[in-house]
């Protein structure tokens, strides 16, 4: 018997929470108190649950983008730069458009602009990788560094709203932002994000394009041998990945913040990487992990204030989870091998 489906995730989650709890004990905190506070705050209270769901939107869009890339064997780690530049672009565009064109058109145009900016920011690593085989891990990280700095420069020098004291872009009025869902505080970006994740999953598993990307990711030499246009596929996967991450930036601005402040960088691009690995690049599974992580973040933030456990403890839990998932996987494989199946 090998560990199947839900158990495979459930066991590591329990182990991670247990070890996390032990760490809290050692630090002199009450683990039960912490966990129940986090859960209550982020899932059981209506306000907290709404916040948790709202947080999921950018995470899911980034996850969709990373799944496309990772499944194609492309390590796009430049998410932060792509995200932030797209956020700034849509934040700059929205207030400028809103007077002239209807709200819906403004929002759609801004999201397209965000995607496009993300895409453009991935082109250089994409071309370097596909043409010259230059490692994209390094180039995307560099471009990300450049992108976040450039976004700040834009805000401080070009897009700065003269009416505010802190450097930030002009704000999009709350009523002009992405429509809320059914009278909640959750914006419609969440729906879009869900559609994107499911769409990407279907694309990867049910289309010729997705299969070619999978082959490229699993065995590049086989893709060449089978006659796929490997250069084009590489660039396409990169572009799609970055456009989705750019869309995440636009959605976060248009749905939540309405503007971008200088030095704002939520650094979600790298935070989502472990989640995508936990989900083994599966679009449906990543929804569950994103919910889990989002709840931990929301609960963890107020727990930091109330229980005195730093917010970064959430990352410790994610790291533990990753570790135990890997470990369970490894042990399970070893056992299956020993059983000769």
């Amino acid at each position, binding site marked *: 018997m090998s560990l199947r489906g839900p158990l495979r995730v459930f066991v590591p989650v329990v182990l991670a929470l247990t070890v996390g709890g032990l760490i809290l004990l050692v630090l002199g905190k009450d683990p039960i108190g912490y966990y129940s506070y986090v859960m209550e705050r982020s899932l059981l209270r209506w306000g907290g649950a709404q916040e948790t769901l709202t947080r999921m939107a950018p995470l899911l869009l980034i996850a969709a983008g990373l799944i496309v890339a990772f499944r194609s064997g492309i390590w796009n780690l430049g998410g932060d730069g792509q995200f932030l530049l797209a956020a700034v672009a849509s934040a700059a565009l929205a207030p400028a458009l809103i007077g002239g064109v209807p709200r819906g058109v403004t929002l759609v145009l801004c999201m397209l602009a965000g995607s496009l900016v993300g895409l453009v920011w991935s082109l250089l690593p994409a071309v370097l990788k596909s043409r010259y085989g230059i490692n994209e891990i390094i180039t995307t990280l560099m471009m990300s560094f450049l992108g976040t700095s450039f976004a700040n420069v834009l805000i401080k020098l070009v897009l700065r709203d003269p009416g505010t004291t802190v450097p930030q872009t002009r704000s999009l009025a709350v009523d002009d932002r992405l429509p809320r869902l059914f009278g909640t505080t959750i914006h419609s970006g969440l729906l879009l994000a869900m559609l994107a994740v499911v769409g990407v999953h279907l694309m990867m598993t049910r289309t010729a*394009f997705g299969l070619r990307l999978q082959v490229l990711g699993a065995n590049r030499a086989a893709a*060449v041998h*089978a*006659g796929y246009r490997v250069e084009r596929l590489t660039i396409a996967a990169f572009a799609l990945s970055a456009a989705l991450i750019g869309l995440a930036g636009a959605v976060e601005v248009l749905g939540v913040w309405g503007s971008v402040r200088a030095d704002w960088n939520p650094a979600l691009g790298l935070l989502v990487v472990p989640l995508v690995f936990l989900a083994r690049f599966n679009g449906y599974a990543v929804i569950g992990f994103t919910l889990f992580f989002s709840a931990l973040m929301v609960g963890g933030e107020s727990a930091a204030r109330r229980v005195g456990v730093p917010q970064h403890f959430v990352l410790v839990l994610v790291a533990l989870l990753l570790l135990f998932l890997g470990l369970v996987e490894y042990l399970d494989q070893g056992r299956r091998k020993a059983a000769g199946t």
Partner: protein
Amino acid sequence: MSIVAALSGITKRYPGVVALDAVSLEFHAGEVHVLLGENGAGKSTLVSVLAGMQQPDEGTVIIGGNPLRIASPRHSIQLGIGTVFQRPSLVLSLTVIENLMLGGSWLRRLARAAALRRFRELATLLGTHLDPDAPLAGLSLGEQQQVEIMRALWRDAKLLLLDEPTSMLTPQGVADLGRMMRNLRDRGVALILITHKLGEAYEFGDRISVLRLGKVAGGIDPEALVAMEESGRTATIIRLMFGLEAGEAATTAGGHAAELAILLGRKIHGPAVVDRSQPPVLRVREASTRAEFAETPLRKVSFELWSSEVLGIAGVDGNGQKHLAEMIAGQRAVHGGALELGGIDITQGGVPERRGRGVRYVTDDRLGEGTVGALPVATNLVLKEVGAPPWWHHGITDWAAIHAHARVLIERNDIRTPSALTPAGKLSGGNVQKVLLARELDAEARVAILNKPTHGLDLHNQRLALDRIGTAAARGVALLVISTDLDELIEISDRIGVMFGGRLAGIVDNDAGAIDRVRRLMTGAGAT
């Protein structure tokens, strides 16, 4: 002249094979001793025994008159033995001098001035002009080999082992190497040169020994070598290498072809079915490819291939066979020359265009590029059809159709797999090959290239693969079968071409005298 090193009754066994069988040889100072033998004859094993990489099961090594055991590579170096292995072992990201300094203890590694002094000494001795600070990756293969030789000589070697050093070199590189070997020989160093090319053996060698199935089959000593004509040397060597009289159509490798023929009791493919009054299906005209790292490119290869014909391609590995296969398949650009399929020029197309016209390629790199191990057998069976009907409509996958198709092929080709959804990487080698054969030798195939179709398979699967080739030919497919197994080619081919140094050295009809002519061509000795 004095004996620097000798082997006495050395036996080395690997599971299921006796790589060296009571081998006794002597290596003299100031002499280039050439070792010849087919792939698998035991030449590299002999080298690794002297280099301290392998311990013999029986027998002794005698160095400077003392019988001893070479316990480790370090010990071998201390004994004055320098080795240039068949596979390059340099660090490409380091410079020439850094690579040379890697050998010593870490203290000596830091003594750059001393290292540079030694480097200049050796450079003068060998007559090379390398820049000690050049990164290795920027050097030609010939120059990298010079560094290998310098490293082997770094600690004053009295015996230098060179395992197939010329196989990757350009003619210029070979000439340079020859000059170096002569310099060393004149300094009293004993050299062991392993090569597949008779021309090199005659040009550089003072003494020749032939290994066959782990035994010393015989040799030619210096006096005889000088006295003999080239044709006489070649006849002697071919007789020793293959264990038969020249021209005699018998079998090698313990008669396994004969055993196989008995196993199935029939001939795979008769030569009579090819109709050469029709125009050929494939015409290759003076086709060349571009050189790449460690690969021999094609140089103006021309041939024609008819429907139902099996054209065998023989030759020692690495003489351009891979480029030939990839060029016809569309995986590698044609660089000068032309390809014609059924009268239509296909020089420009890539894999999809060629495949669309019926060109098929069964690669020898079955796991590396032929299949995607992580994906199911079913997916691998349509890997080259992705996006095409009937399995895809407007880009949407019809998995049910793909799985049904896979079940049919699995059944028909006797592919042993738990299911169509099993990852291809879990299949045994023979079954992976069945997947590839099923994918490539389909109903629309017109020209199929098979690169080493039986390599690494067990007897039964070898048989099945050859059988599939025969059936495809009977269906009218034109086949190009690349193999290093001559018996196999003799058995299935109508004609046999030989690749040598990127050229098609010749094509011979598969008749009674074929085996002898092919062997001559294989050693670069010329057809007639």
